[in-house]
């Protein structure tokens, strides 16, 4: 599992530039993620990798293509100090795990981390540190556990 670290205010144009918005397919979108700002990302990203960022991750456009592009490459979780709201909602609704935690200064690329969503704890095995985070509200956890909004609605039918 690799940590990919990004800065503050990572916008959806960086996550998936507009010229690739001609498909909604997560796997295809994943091949263009961060194409303009970090071209090596889409070549090297692996199933289970984690993104760590600062404030306001996913700001800008409502394009669900952005969380889909991350999910399509197998990103297991995005940890940021805060998220832009449409990105936040869309991620939960499509089943991409997010953690809101102020660990931007603590976790570096190359660190080995373990996440316990139930306990609300990130363990940094490299630095031998633990960071607590507030688990999502129960309703949103239910959405994620169902695999997203669509499966949640199907179960309710």
């Amino acid at each position: 599992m690799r940590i990919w670290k990004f800065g503050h205010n990572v916008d959806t144009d960086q996550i998936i530039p507009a010229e690739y918005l001609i498909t909604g397919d997560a796997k295809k979108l994943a091949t263009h993620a961060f194409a303009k700002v970090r071209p090596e990302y889409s070549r090297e990203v692996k199933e289970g990798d984690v993104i760590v960022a600062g404030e306001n991750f996913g700001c800008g456009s409502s394009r669900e293509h952005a969380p889909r592009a991350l999910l399509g490459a197998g990103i297991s979780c995005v940890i940021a100090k805060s998220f832009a709201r449409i990105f936040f909602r869309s991620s939960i609704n499509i089943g991409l795990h997010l953690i809101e935690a102020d660990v931007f200064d603590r976790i570096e690329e190359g660190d080995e981390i373990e996440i316990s969503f139930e306990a609300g704890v990130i363990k940094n095995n490299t630095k031998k540190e633990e960071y607590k985070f507030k688990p999502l509200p129960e309703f949103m956890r239910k959405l994620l556990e169902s695999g997203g909004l669509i499966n949640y609605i199907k179960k309710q039918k």
Partner: protein
Amino acid sequence: MPTIAEKILCGKAGEIVECEIDYIMVNDVTGVPAFEVFEELELEPAGELKREKVVVIQDHYVPNKDVDSAEQAKALRDYARRYGIGNYYEIGKGGVCHQVMIEEGFAAPGRLIIGADSHTCSYGALGAFSTGVGSTEAAAAMATGRLWFKVPETQKFVINGELKRYVMGKDIVLHIIGDIGVSGSLYKSQEFYGTAIEDLSLPDRITISNMAVEAGAKAGIIPPDDKVFDFLRDMVRGEYKAVYADTESEYEEVFEYDASEIVPTVAKPFSPENTVPASELDVIIDQAYLGSCTNGRIADLRVAAEILKGKSVNREVRMIVVPASEKVFEQAIEEGLIKIFLDAGAFVSGPTCGACLGGHMGVLAKGERCVSTTNRNFIGRMGHKDSEVYLANPAVVAASAIKGRITDPSELEP
């Protein structure tokens, strides 16, 4: 006491509520994934889609920019036909989605509208609670007519006083974002008050609500008044009921600004919060762009035309004018504005989101700079990753097109 957001969402800040949606808008980029997700729900019969609530507008990559976008637009067209969606706007009959939602009477006070486009918050200028959502949420709402919301805290913005010449709604909103930052309203609803807002025309108010999302806000609401009611007379769909905050409403924060201190403002790359007075910049430009859901209305075109009348676009600059809708385009022709732009040497096209998001019709090459009336200046937003976008009002864009560098319009006065 409740704020406008709390009243429309029928809940207290912090609560998670499920609400009935008035309209759900999707476009060619977000609509196809939304219909795909809708079909995953496997509703029987398929006719269960809440078609009277759904509005489908082709605007981002139309007229089709290449084969892929042609396939995407066709897929959306096919979905709209298959589900019998009457509120379908093809090119030539609509325009940029938010302008169409307003012109066609979908947006109205007190309504709850979602759109799979972040600038759906524009309708807050008419007193609606409207907000951008993802395609999956749009699909869920198409199926159930409802959606979950976390009721936001509300920030109050009070702008009193008189605006100077060439200062527009764009400058107010850029000034605010420059002050509070691009995450200054994260997850929150904004409400706008004060004499400067009351004096503002509806198009200028729409610019302010439109860019609420650039500060991270969920909504940017202006209490509706006679300017809104007059605009809606004879064209609004159905009934509506204006919603106001109580005088004792609880705001999380209050921000106050003196309108007379706001100047023509520019947001430099690569963030809308990176604001400076236009007069302080000395930046050579390659392109000047007038259009978008932010500043492509008739009032915006009038302001730019007044400055460009009898003048020429600088020989080193390409000026691109894109009216926000067919109706705006037609009115601009009737008023002689298009002739003024053409005579000045500008390129004029029909409505499209086009170059605003780096789609087509004005994409930038490496190292090029564009002064633009649009809403975002992120890295590579209008083209190459090493191109730059400077956000400004229509008067600044027109003046800059003439001078060939970013210019405060008052500099052109004798």
